[in-house]
């Protein structure tokens, strides 16, 4: 996984709440056996609509998605994260994320910045008033920043310390866990014999 420290990119206002992972990428697009190529299915149902934000310039070059609360609820499909990354997104800002989506994003290197509802509202207003405005997402300082002058929007975001550390270092979870292989083997030696087995 590539390390994430800071990113500056065009913000995309997605004025919707409860954007579940079926809307991010419908099931019919989940049939690939690779991690790439899912960008085609991103927001598939909305992409036919010319007024959809990602069909408009300059939002189509956006890399920071700003969404309403409960983004990424529903199905566990990590393809939702891959589809956003495939389409160039580096970060998603929302007041609340679905748990599994957020965990998947942390593993795959997509930053999920949880901010207050009001911050999302202000970002939406700015991005719509001044299309092409960029958002700075700084994982070191845990801040999001957009606009300039008196209307500057700057606020801190929530992300757990452990995920932040892994993202900053670009660390792979499996190697981290395998460093504790002895603990796993010791635990296995203690497991009762009546536990279920498939073979």
């Amino acid at each position: 996984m590539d390390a994430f420290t800071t990113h500056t990119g065009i913000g995309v206002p997605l004025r919707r709440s409860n954007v579940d992972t079926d809307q991010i990428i419908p099931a019919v697009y989940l049939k690939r056996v690779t991690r790439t190529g899912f960008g085609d299915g991103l927001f598939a149902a909305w992409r036919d609509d010319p007024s959809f934000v990602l069909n408009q310039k300059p939002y189509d070059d956006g890399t920071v998605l700003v969404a309403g609360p409960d983004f990424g609820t529903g199905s566990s499909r990590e393809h939702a994260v891959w589809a956003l990354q495939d389409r160039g997104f580096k970060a998603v800002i929302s007041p609340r994320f679905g748990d599994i989506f957020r965990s998947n994003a942390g593993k795959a290197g997509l930053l999920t910045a949880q901010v207050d509802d009001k911050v999302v509202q202000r970002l939406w207003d700015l991005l719509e008033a001044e299309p092409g405005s960029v958002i700075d997402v700084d994982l070191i300082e845990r801040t999001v920043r957009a606009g300039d002058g008196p209307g500057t929007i700057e606020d801190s975001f929530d992300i757990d310390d452990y995920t932040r550390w892994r993202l900053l270092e670009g660390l792979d979870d499996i190697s981290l866990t395998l460093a504790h292989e002895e603990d796993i083997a010791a635990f296995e030696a203690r497991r009762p014999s009546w536990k279920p087995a498939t073979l």
Partner: protein
Amino acid sequence: MGRTLAEKVWDEHVVRSSEGEPDLLYIDLHLVHEVTSPQAFDGLRSAGRAVRRPDLTLATEDHNVPTLDWDQPIKDPVSRTQVETLRRNAEEFGIRLHPLGDLDQGIVHIIGPQLGLTQPGTTIVCGDSHTSTHGAFGALAFGIGTSEVEHVLATQTLPQSRPKTMAVTVTGELPDGVTAKDLVLTLIAHIGTGGGQGYVVEYRGPAIEALSMEGRMTVCNMSIEWGAKAGLIAPDEVTFAYLKGRPEAPRGADWDAAVAHWKSLVTDEDARFDREIQLDASTMTPFVTWGTNPAQGVPLAGSVPHPESFEEDGDGIAARKALAYMGLEAGTPMRDIRVDTVFVGSCTNGRIEDLRVAAEVVRGRRVADGTRLLVVPGSVRVRLQAEDEGLDVIFKEAGGEWRGAGCSMCLGMNPDQLAPQERSASTSNRNFEGRQGKGGRTHLVSVPVAAATAIRGTLSSTADLEEI
């Protein structure tokens, strides 16, 4: 201070705990299917890693498999590739697989309990959010993404932060004709789609204890629909009776040792939950959704709500969008809504008791003109049991379609999909936009409501049917 059931199961599985890091949890059972696993196996291959415990791993084909001509090669080449990829991976990594055509094939959350692999006090994960189903046995079970699937394959563990605990206590008794599905839909409408976020939930109280194992699975299945990490129910005699004699359940002295341990898996009297909710089952009625998330529901006796009636602005806007998508007018009585397709099946309601209830309703009646009834058993064993009992004949004589086992129209990944604007009454778990097919409109319902709706062609309860 005492501990909750969830805390007991958690503590028993901590391999390693360190300040400032998530706990490393041991996973007792890892269920695998064709859609969320190929990239995980690829990751193992490219890192030169093996599956640590193939003996704690089970794979099946369920999400994209056809429910017609399932004994023929899969027609859709992309689906076929995905299924064939799982078969190759299972072979290469030494994993037990129940493929299409096998007697134990079926929806992953139906075959685990059916085989007796889902046991109290275990940790169970799967690359599918409805893994919460297994919580009905007092297991700590939750859905994971593909990176985590790879992590579990490689290490049989997962780093996890300790969740908060919540109790949902349901007192009273469900009235006749009101089911576990109505109970959980009522709960979700009450608390909202994000209400369970960050919590492991324990469902308890007389109304929960009175449920069969299958009813308990229906409740736990939908934990994720209100954002909970997992949902579980303390194991009791009903649980033990369900498990005894199943192919992979412990036997002899192992059974006695297991039951002795399982009996300790209850929340201590002096344990504290971070949050508690109470509901009264005796006030519940058949419950259906009108919108595009599972919290947008009302009693069947009610009407499509007015967007202005919501206190929060956001909910009003979401309601307006949902009504436009669903093609509904505020104020329309739910019972006046015409339905094109009725789907009975899924990991929520595709078990044998569900099919018996549906068959009892349609027996001797005809599916309404202009309405299609699709009955999809959750597993091959469920299908064979239903056929043994003659349920398939009842559905077919009523004009319904009887299919092979799989996830089917719950998520429309195989050919079983809604057309744009087609309206369904579905016993599944999600009414999201496009979930059952692009532009499809889904109403989540219980099994008896689904069956009665098939007969009348409009959303209905069994009480609406004419006597025969």
